[in-house]
């Protein structure tokens, strides 16, 4: 069946191909992108906002944005999955801070060493980063999670934990570098 064949080929297509097809208003390609990344987007949003309804709103916004302006993503911004994860997190933080979106997704450039296009690669990356966090000193993990998932500033974190500002800064940076090292 031709339709089934198209879906199969979309499932195996690269992100770049699917984004290009989305730009050409191909709903099949967009659907494949949704199937590929809606889990990451929703999970990140839910982790930050904690309310499924709000997380679904953010999921909706992110994918509507991808549908309306797929050209915002380009290969130079890193992998599509990583880019979506970052702009989702930023949007979710803006939501809990009750502020308008601060970052223009077009300005979000990143260098990601991982390719999240296949389910196997996504699962492998998730397991690896979870392992890195589990093995991290708890104070360090908490510091980086408070900054990343709760949107707290280093002064907020210092106030909450009673740790010096410099210590919080160092822990957050070290945590990010530990994640990086695990994927080198």
């Amino acid at each position: 069946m031709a339709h089934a064949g198209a879906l199969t080929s979309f499932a195996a297509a690269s992100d770049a191909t699917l984004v290009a097809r989305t730009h050409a208003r191909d709903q099949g390609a967009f659907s494949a992108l949704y199937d590929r990344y809606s889990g990451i987007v929703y999970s990140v949003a839910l982790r930050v906002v904690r309310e499924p309804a709000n997380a679904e709103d953010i999921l909706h916004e992110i994918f509507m944005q991808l549908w309306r302006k797929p050209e915002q993503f380009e290969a130079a911004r890193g992998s599509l999955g990583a880019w979506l994860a970052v702009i989702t997190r930023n949007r979710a933080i803006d939501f809990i801070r009750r502020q308008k979106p601060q970052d223009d997704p077009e300005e979000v450039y990143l260098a990601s060493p991982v390719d999240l296009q296949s389910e196997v690669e996504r699962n492998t990356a998730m397991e690896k980063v979870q392992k890195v966090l589990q093995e991290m000193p708890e104070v360090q993990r908490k510091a980086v999670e408070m900054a990343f998932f709760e949107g707290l500033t280093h002064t907020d974190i210092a106030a909450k934990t009673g740790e010096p500002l410099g210590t919080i800064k160092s822990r957050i940076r070290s945590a990010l570098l530990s994640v990086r090292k695990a994927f080198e």
Partner: protein
Amino acid sequence: MTNHEIPAEDLALYALGALAPDDQERIAAHLETCASCRTELMKLRGDAALLALSAPTVAPSARARERLFKEIAKTPAAEKSSVKLGAPWWQVTFPTLTALALIVFAFWLVAQNALIRHELDNARLTAAQQTAAVEQARQVVETLSATNAQRVTLVAAQSKPQPQAQTIYQRDKGRLVLVASNLEPLPPNKAYELWILPANGSAPIPAGTFQPDARGNASLVLPQIPTGVEAKGFAVTIEPQGGSATPTMPIKMLGTTG
């Protein structure tokens, strides 16, 4: 610390948006002029993206998907191409220029198409002519070399038919055809051999062997010979089967040009 006026820790916090607004602005100003910090920022954002993957995996509901695709279905196609106010000039003019370039390109393609069609017609005509010429040549060769063709040599009335041979020779292309008739039968293990007699007086050049049929007819078509040899004549001798490097006397048949 980095080698810059900003600490590396601050860049990491900036990547997460975890600095106070004043500090965010300070780092942003620095990034405007520092390529190495911009590169490091991209890496830190990549690290942050990986950190995002630590969120427990939860699949969105089917309702969320349905809602999204319902809205997409309502999205007019023109919405995507709308250009926001205040966009850079190139965002406005680039699509127009691209469209114009495509129109010009389309006209060029049409012209090229017509040219290619014309060339194709000519090529087809040439191919047809060549096919006809090849077919005619094939028929000539087939007639000359056919064993069942009737060969009749016309001679003066009342005279006894004599062995005859005619050579047709194209020096510049090294092509040679011999048609013979009324040839005498050969002794066992012998063959007639044709020789080119060069005009410069050099040694005769072997031009292939041939056997007469029961009626004394024979032909020799396009033997392997050198090109460019000006011939003053041709000779036929009887040689061992397989031919000789030099003619064995006597010469059985001889013809000269002019």
